[in-house]
C-alpha cells in the first residue's frame, strides 16, 4: 500500500516524497572494530514489528523526522 507519512511540519504526505533512513544498530557483543564496520555498512536488523526509523522529507520541508512504524502492517504510531 502506498504509505502515508504524517509529517509534523507538512501534514500527511505519500511515502514517495520521502527518503528512507535506517538507524543502524550494531550489536554490543560485536567487539572487533573491522567486524563492527562491516556490520554497520551492510547488516540489517530488518525487524518485523514496531520499529523506529528516520525519514527525510526530500520533496517537502527537507527536514528529518523520526517515525515509529509497525513493519508488519505499516501502522504508524508516532512521527516527530
Amino acid at each position, binding site marked *: 500500500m*502506498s504509505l502515508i507519512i504524517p509529517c509534523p511540519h507538512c501534514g500527511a504526505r505519500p511515502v514517495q516524497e520521502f527518503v528512507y533512513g535506517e538507524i543502524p544498530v550494531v550489536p554490543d557483543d560485536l567487539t572487533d572494530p573491522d567486524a563492527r564496520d562491516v556490520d554497520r555498512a551492510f547488516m540489517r536488523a530488518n525487524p*518485523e514489528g514496531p520499529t523506529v526509523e528516520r525519514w527525510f522529507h526530500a520533496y517537502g520541508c527537507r527536514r528529518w523526522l523520526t517515525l515509529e512504524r509497525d513493519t508488519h502492517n505499516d501502522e504508524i504510531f508516532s512521527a516527530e
Partner: protein
Amino acid sequence: MNEFMERQVKLTWHEPKASYDVVIVGGGGHGLSTAYHLATRHGITNVAVLERKYIGGGNSGRNTTVIRANYGIPEAVRFYQRSVELYQRLEEETGRWIMHERKGLLWLAHTEAGVRAERARARVNTAFGAETLFVTPGEIKEIAPEVDLTGGGQWPVLGGSYHPQGATARHDRVNWALAEGAMERGVHIHQRTAVTDLLKEGDRVTGVMTDKGPIHAGAVVSAVGGHVTALGRMAGLRLPIRTHPLQAFVTNHYALDFHPIVASMSLLFYASQTARGEMLIGAEIDPQPSYSYRSGHHFLQSCAFRAMTLLPFLRRLRILRQWTGVCDMSPDYSPIMGKTGVENFYITTGWGTWGFKAIPAGGEQMAELIATGETPELIAPFALDRFARDRTLADRGSAGTH
C-alpha cells in the same frame, strides 16, 4: 509439450519423520528446486521441505515470471545463463508443461548514458555466454512495433539491448513440476509446518523445531523468502537483507499478440503478455521496508502512466487485479548463496526481485554444495562473507526494479 499431453499432478503427502538427512526451510521455488536436484542429481532422497503455508505461495507465486540472463557483471551472467538453459530443458526433464515460452527481451534506453550501459551489457553478456545484442531504434520498432519511439515526447528511445533467450514460464507450474519430481523420488514436503527455532549443539545446527515438534537433520538449508532475517537470527547470524514490498498488476485481455518482454531502464517498468492474453506489468520496489502484502492505488497510477508512455495501446485496457510480494533486498542487488559460517546451516537468500529466473540453477548449485560439501565454482562469488571480504557484486542496473 502442451495441454493435450498433461496428466494429473501427483503429490503424495507424508507425516513428518523424526530426522532427515537434509531439511529445507521454505517450500518456494528455490527450496523445491534444491530438493529436486538433491534427489535427481545426487540420489539424496531422505529430504524434507518445510513450508509455513502452502508450496509456491510466497514470492514464487507472486513474481512476474521473467527468465533472462542479461546481467551486468560476469559472475551473474554466467549463473543466470545456466538457469536460462536449465529452464529450456525443464519441461523435457520433468515431463511437465510449465508453459515455457521464448519471447525475447527488450531493454530500452532513453539517455546517452543508458545507451552506453546497454552497449556494455551486450558486450559483457556476449563475452560470458549470454546472447545479447545492441539494437537501434529502427530495430526496436521491428521487434516491438507497439513501442512509441518518441516516448510520449518525453522519453525518446535512443537504443537498447535485445536478449533473444528471454522467456517466461507459468510460475505455479514450475513449483508443482519440481515438487512432483522431488516427491516421486521420496522427498517429503510438509505444508503448514512453521519453523519456530533451530536446534543447536554448540555452534552446530542439528535440526529445526517446528510447530509440529522437533525434526533432526544432517544439514539445514534456509530457502526462506521474506522472513529470512528471523531464521538467520535463530542461527546467530546477522544478514545484509532488508525486506521491501514489490507490486505488480495485470490488465484485461489484449486481443492482439504482444510477443516480446519490454522493459525500460529510465521509466522503471516491464511488460509482457501472459498466456491468457493479459498484459502483466511490474515496476520498482516500494521505498519503505515492510512485510505488508497490501497493494495500493498510488503504484497503479504511477506505473500505469509510465507503461502507457512507451506502450500507448495499454491505455485502452483496464486493470484486472494487482498483488504484492515481499522481496529480500541485498545491498549489492545480487543473491547470497552458500555456507554461512555456522556448521550444517546453508543459506540461499537475497533473491530480491530476481529469484524466479534463478530457480533451476539456484537449486542445482545448492544441491551440489550440500551433497559434496564443496561450494561450486558458479556460486562461490555469491557467498555471504563477500561483504566482510569487500567483494560485493554490485549490479543494481540489472535488477530492473530500482
